[in-house]
């Protein structure tokens, strides 16, 4: 049980992604729940820097209709 609670690590730090593109809707989708809400840092394990960049990217994607603002069953 203790082993399962491994330290979560920032996805973007792990994969060395410096720029989060708002057009890359496919990879943004994993940081959004079924309703289209942005998953909080405490759940996703992202670092503050990347979470900030991620939120702006998701919000931009919403503006140009690449992601939904809200949805009954997204994904």
């Amino acid at each position, binding site marked *: 049980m203790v082993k*399962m*609670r*491994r330290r*979560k690590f920032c996805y973007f730090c792990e*994969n*060395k*992604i*410096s*720029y*989060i*593109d*708002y*057009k*890359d*809707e*496919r*990879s943004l989708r*994993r940081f959004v729940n*079924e309703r289209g809400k942005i998953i909080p840092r*405490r*759940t*996703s*394990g992202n670092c503050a820097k990347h979470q900030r960049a991620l939120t702006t990217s998701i919000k*931009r994607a*919403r*503006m*140009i*209709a*690449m*992601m*939904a*603002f809200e*949805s009954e*069953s997204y*994904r």
Partner: protein
Amino acid sequence: MRIYETTFIVNPQTDDASIDRDVTSVFNLITADGGKIVYENRMGTRRLAYPIQKLTQGYYTTLVYESEPEILPKLERHFKLGETYMRHLTIRFEGDVSKLGQIPEYGAPGEHTRDGRSRDDRPSDEKGVEGRRSEEKPAPEATATEPKVETETTPTTEAPAVTAETETTTTESDVKQADDTAPIATNPPEITEEDEL
């Protein structure tokens, strides 16, 4: 001179020639002002995440260009006057210009890109079903898929058959989904801990 990135959506219900005219008029506006287009990507007609002007599809174009800031109000005016422009978004480009050709997969080395593609290859219905299933019981799946990781790496290098390839993509996505759900599964105990504190 600054680097900007503009993405805009043109109404796809007009004929191809007028779509092209709308897109090139934006090009011309930028270049006429001494701007230099660094990158263009006509993504074509794609589904919108929500309807705009009662349409469910739109013709997407992305431009990255170097220009003086004076271009922005002109572009803005152009987009507002042209009735076929459904949406537009201009941002200061902060990414790496040299990586531009790899859009939309860029910024995504290794595992990340592969996951994105393999997930997209499957029909959307299937994604939804599988996603929900894995959320319900993430723990057994995580353990079940782990041995697959080892087997998966060897066949990809030597398997030329199409069937083998499709097999590997499915295992990849399975593994990824297990990864996805793992943090969610671990989360509840942590929250309770915080509450106690």
